[in-house]
């Protein structure tokens, strides 16, 4: 019989398998089992067993009775040998010092390795075999740290990669289109929680609004339908954000749910919730610490995204009417026109002008003029389909792009806008009229009927608008009917001349 030194093992499981297989082979045991002592529950728990040529995980938990062979072996830390009706046994107790992350010493792992021989075919373990078992198993277990080292080093490598890549993700999130999605995907790719949800406090600070949720496979879902009033007692999440959460609740879920308020410069801007509720797997302290350390960066990244959006909004949208500006509109018009041409779909343009707007400004002042513009913008935004794209083209001119709309559909919308805008009443207390009414003149052109280019469509809509403005304002004209209208007008003039 000889004892060989253990070689290098890539994991704890491989190490235990190697130990049990080799110890059973060396000592002619039919079975070998590795039990560790679970101090928290005062139980010996089976970790791995080797039997019938196979090493396998198995479940057994036992409380050691005082005076039993197992208890005596553990107390004396000496090899125990005994025989009972189940077979011949040898228990080799062990105690391994473990160093965890940060070279902090943890409580030692204690337990024993049990070797078995069948009662009929086998024989009792001899003192020399017990000595060999002691030498071999304790020697083998001294290499346990190697397997632990591999596990720890893998964990460190993963953490390092996470720190590097997540920092990059958060820093770059400013430049990506779907920034929130990018951040959530980054978190999931390293931590892999059952679910990650992101809630942000709205601009007025009155609501916590759901943004996105990611599942265990990293699939992202929109949760904008979730809105929580930011008031004490309204919802658990609101209480957490407001710093009023119930300790009892948090305590119960601390193992598999983590609520991470996102704070930037002392201001809470949202809440990141990660959970392992479905799998019931504990969020490891390492993961917890790392995610907490990222909270500041996540908050900052989200804040940057919001600021970026705000800046973009200011550069693309008109502050007064909330309608996109001409530069943005021109870009979208090109895209939509290309799509309409390619897929042979109709497209309509409405060009609107607020009647007598210059006179409103001159008579009542710019404040009233601004109010008129604001109200017109509101009515327009409220009446459009999701795919329509309006724009404050300049001064009191508004252009609306209607993808996939025919002339009839555009005329219908134009009619609705004209009607609703005519119902607008702007109070002017210092004037005799007390209030001001607003009306629109509208010209409509369509692709492909009226023109085959962006410029052509705008020109035709403008022509139609000009016709309305030169014929008493407050009406709608379709470019395709201009020839007819002009001919009718000419005929009318001629018959009047006759």
């Amino acid at each position, binding site marked *: 019989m000889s004892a060989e030194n253990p070689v290098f093992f890539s994991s704890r499981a491989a190490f235990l398998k190697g130990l049990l297989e080799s110890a059973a082979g060396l000592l002619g045991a039919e079975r070998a089992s590795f039990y560790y002592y679970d101090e928290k529950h005062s139980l010996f728990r089976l970790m791995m067993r080797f039997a019938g040529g196979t090493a396998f995980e198995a479940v057994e938990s036992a409380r050691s009775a005082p005076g*039993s*062979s197992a208890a005596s072996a553990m107390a004396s830390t000496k090899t125990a040998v005994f025989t009972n009706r189940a077979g011949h046994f040898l228990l080799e107790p062990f105690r391994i010092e473990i160093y965890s992350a940060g070279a902090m010493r943890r409580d030692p792992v204690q337990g024993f390795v049990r070797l078995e021989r069948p009662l009929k075919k086998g024989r009792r373990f001899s003192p020399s075999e017990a000595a060999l078992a002691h030498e071999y198993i304790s020697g083998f277990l001294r290499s346990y740290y190697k397997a632990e080292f591999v596990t720890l080093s893998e964990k460190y490598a993963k953490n390092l990669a996470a720190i590097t890549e997540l920092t990059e993700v958060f820093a770059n999130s400013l430049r990506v289109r779907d920034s929130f999605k990018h951040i959530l995907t980054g978190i999931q790719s390293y931590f892999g929680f059952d679910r990650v949800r992101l809630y942000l406090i709205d601009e007025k600070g009155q609501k916590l609004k759901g943004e996105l949720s990611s599942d265990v496979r990293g699939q992202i879902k929109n949760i904008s339908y979730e809105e929580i009033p930011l008031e004490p007692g309204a919802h658990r999440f609101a209480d957490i954000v407001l710093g009023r959460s119930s300790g009892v609740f948090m305590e119960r879920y601390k193992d598999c749910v983590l609520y991470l308020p996102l704070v930037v410069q002392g201001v809470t801007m949202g809440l990141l919730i990660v959970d392992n509720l479905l799998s*019931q797997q504990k969020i490891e302290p390492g993961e917890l610490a790392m995610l907490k350390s990222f909270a500041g960066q996540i908050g900052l990244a989200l804040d940057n995204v919001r600021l970026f959006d705000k800046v973009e909004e200011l550069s693309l949208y008109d502050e007064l009417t909330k309608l996109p500006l001409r530069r943005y509109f021109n870009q979208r018009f090109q895209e939509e026109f290309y799509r309409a041409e390619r897929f042979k779909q109709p497209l309509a343009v409405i060009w609107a002008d607020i009647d007598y707007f210059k006179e409103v400004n001159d008579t009542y002042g710019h404040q009233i003029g601004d109010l008129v513009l604001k109200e017109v913008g509101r009515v327009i935004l409220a009446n459009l389909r999701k795919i329509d794209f309006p724009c404050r083209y300049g001064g009191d001119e508004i252009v609306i792009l209607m993808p996939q709309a025919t002339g009839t559909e555009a005329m219908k919308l134009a009619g609705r806008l004209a009607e609703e805008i005519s119902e607008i009443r702007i109070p002017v207390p210092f004037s005799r009229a007390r209030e001001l009414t607003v009306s629109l003149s509208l010209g409509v052109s369509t692709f492909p009927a009226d023109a085959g280019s962006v410029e052509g469509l705008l020109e035709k809509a403008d022509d139609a608008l000009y016709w309305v403005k030169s014929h008493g304002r407050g009406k709608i004209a379709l470019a395709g009917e201009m020839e007819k209208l002009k001919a009718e007008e000419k005929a009318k003039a001629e018959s009047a001349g006759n």
Partner: protein
Amino acid sequence: MLIWLLADPDPGKFSAFRNLLNSFSTQYPDIGVDFRVLTRRSMWRLLFAGLRDSKSGACADIVELPNSWTAVFAKLGLLAEIGGVMESFSPARYPEFLKKGCVTRESDIAYSAPWWMEAPALFYRPDAFRKSGLKPEKDLSDWPGLMAACERLAAANRRRGFYPVMHGDGRMSAAQALPCIWNRRGDLFSEDMSRCLLSKEESVAGLEDYMEPAIKGFLPLFSDSVLHGGPFYEDTAAMVIGTRAPAAPGRRSSFHPARIPGPREKEQVLGYNLAAAAGSPALKEAGVFLKWLLSAENCRSFTAAFGVFPCPKQALEEALDSSRAGEFWRKVFSAPAEAPCSAVHPTAELLLDKALWHASLRIARQAYSREDFLRELIIAQGEIDYLLSLY
């Protein structure tokens, strides 16, 4: 190709599987197959790890699953459609009650194939009953009868280390508790699967029935006999609650099976299925192996090695015909509870199991508190209800 098998108290399962692999390798020398044995807990953890990191190939090509796990892992996209992997897969080969354990709640597409099954029962020693003047048919017909039998057996066997009843796995578990919950007309879920009923009065009453023998000291928990080669059921227990007849190695069992007492109308059947991982690069080979492994012949020889039952109808009939207690098991399998197919069911089982684990620890330390147990059930119910709203 790698297969993950679930741990089993009987190592015969793995010897039998190794023998099957050897036969397969002879017939299909080009397909290499190996296996690893994982506890239920490790398997659950690693399957979720596989979901999280599907690119790393962390998951095995084929996995053995409790049939209640099919729905959740199919829904999360881990499992491949079994019909796409195994051309000849036919649900008609299996008893109807196993069907739901192969599909998700939303569709009838099968994601796993039934392999083997077992059912919890109360195994009693006729000689111990005779000595105490007990008649199983009469005294084991309901739960109070079982408790009265425990009292008489304890009084008649005052020697140290004897217990009227034991648990096959040394502690209280969710799988064995369900029949008691059903006895009281409780359940894990409402019929429409919209609510969890874990802390409802009926379910709690069933759980308390289940725990009563342990609380009253008739049933040991975490017995240290396992550390010394046990448990030694033959002379230390008159009854065992478990799924397989207890026997010393190489000896015939002296225990006879009986229903877990109570008026319920259905029996708990624990089914174990095989599934292929959707991300496996060896799905074709997996199909060949599964078709071969799930043949009636191979199912029969495999299950006979560790005292459980094969799932294919034909093999099941043959196994029941050749079993000593075939008639008893035939009755059990003729009134089975349908396998659950909710994605939340495994988590509910897990939480109930956790509550029973904590209760077992407290009872073993003689520190059991009903309030603590109820609180745990109420919180678990809240958590499961929340999950039901999500999955």
